[in-house]
């Protein structure tokens, strides 16, 4: 039995319309009935603005530079870049896949390219142990490979290494030299690749006794 929502008159279960008020019954509609010619375009007008908003937000998100390293902390660019990196990290953790997580594999371990390696004190054709201290305060042990041909690579030997390299964009690479001093080299990550950006800093001990320094006065 179908009860007409308009006039409340009962109709046969297979009735297609109400004989009392001529309301047409539609089996597919949520209420089982609708009045003919009652549909309007008002319910459809929200789709275009929603699509426009989604497209606008999508373009805005895409134009954010997530590898921005010169942004002043607290500025819009820094905040937007951090937000975009957070989204990428969340997606990577959720899906268990990060296409830029490693550049390649070296010696069976994940490796990242290290560009501008002329300033590295590591000898070519070998490896050297380094510690990388990240801006977040975390640090981990890595290997630097400098093949005879090709660029240097950072190899993660610590289980925390890959995550730290993927999340951070700035770090200090600490290399032990033969004289026992540690050289600190600034490295940054842009477009998925790490690169040395600053000149090798003089170790703190070498400044002692230099003319013009405090101790030399």
């Amino acid at each position: 039995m179908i009860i007409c929502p308009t006039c409340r008159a009962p109709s046969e279960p297979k009735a297609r319309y109400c004989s009392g008020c001529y309301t047409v019954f539609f089996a597919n509609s949520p209420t089982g009935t609708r009045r003919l010619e009652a549909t309007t375009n008002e319910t459809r007008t929200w789709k275009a603005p929603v699509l426009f908003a989604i497209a606008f937000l999508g373009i805005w998100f895409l134009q954010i530079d997530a590898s921005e390293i010169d942004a002043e902390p607290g500025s819009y660019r820094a905040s937007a870049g951090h937000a975009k990196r957070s989204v990428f990290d969340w997606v990577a953790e959720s899906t268990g896949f990060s296409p830029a997580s490693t550049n390649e594999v070296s010696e069976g371990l994940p490796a990242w390219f290290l560009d501008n390696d002329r300033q590295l004190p590591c000898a070519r054709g070998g490896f050297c142990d380094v510690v990388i201290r990240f801006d977040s305060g975390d640090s981990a042990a890595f290997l630097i490979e400098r093949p005879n041909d090709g660029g240097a690579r950072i190899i993660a030997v610590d289980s925390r290494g890959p995550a730290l390299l993927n999340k951070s964009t700035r770090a200090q690479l600490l290399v032990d030299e033969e004289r026992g001093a540690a050289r600190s080299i600034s490295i940054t990550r842009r477009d998925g690749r790490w690169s040395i950006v600053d000149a090798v800093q003089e170790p703190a001990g070498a400044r002692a006794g230099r003319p013009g320094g405090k101790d030399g006065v």
Partner: protein
Amino acid sequence: MKMRMQQLIRMLFPQPGPALERRLHKRAVQYWRNALGDREMVALADFDPLAIEDDSSHGFLLNLGMPIEPVFSYIGPVLEQEAGVHGDQVRLAAVPQHSLLRRFASHYLRVLESGQPETAEYDFVTSAGYHVLCRGALLPLSADGVTVDHVYGVVSWKSEKVAVC
């Protein structure tokens, strides 16, 4: 398929100008005119009643192969129930005269004479006190591309409670 895409595009991006035609009989005439294009006749094979109405429940197809005794090749379920007829190949003469199907389909002679879509209106008051205003359109179709030998019609209505004085 092309008509469905156009409907989808119109639904997602409603034009600021004339809105999508809500009235069934107007939609039918618009569809017929679009289907006619530069041709003399709209071919029966090219006519898609689903482009006018999703389930053709308010449509009917009248076969005028024998103009003296037209026969319904198709009657939409709503009109079928309203007229109280069932089955295939129902003769126009067998449809009750008071039914909307008979009232509107009887205008087929005007379509035969003019070769153009014809519209008609009819209103009545039901025993439950509802004023029903009906509008219909009849569209000439041709199976051979030369003469009008089929008529497709649609009937729609709206009703409102008659104010009790």
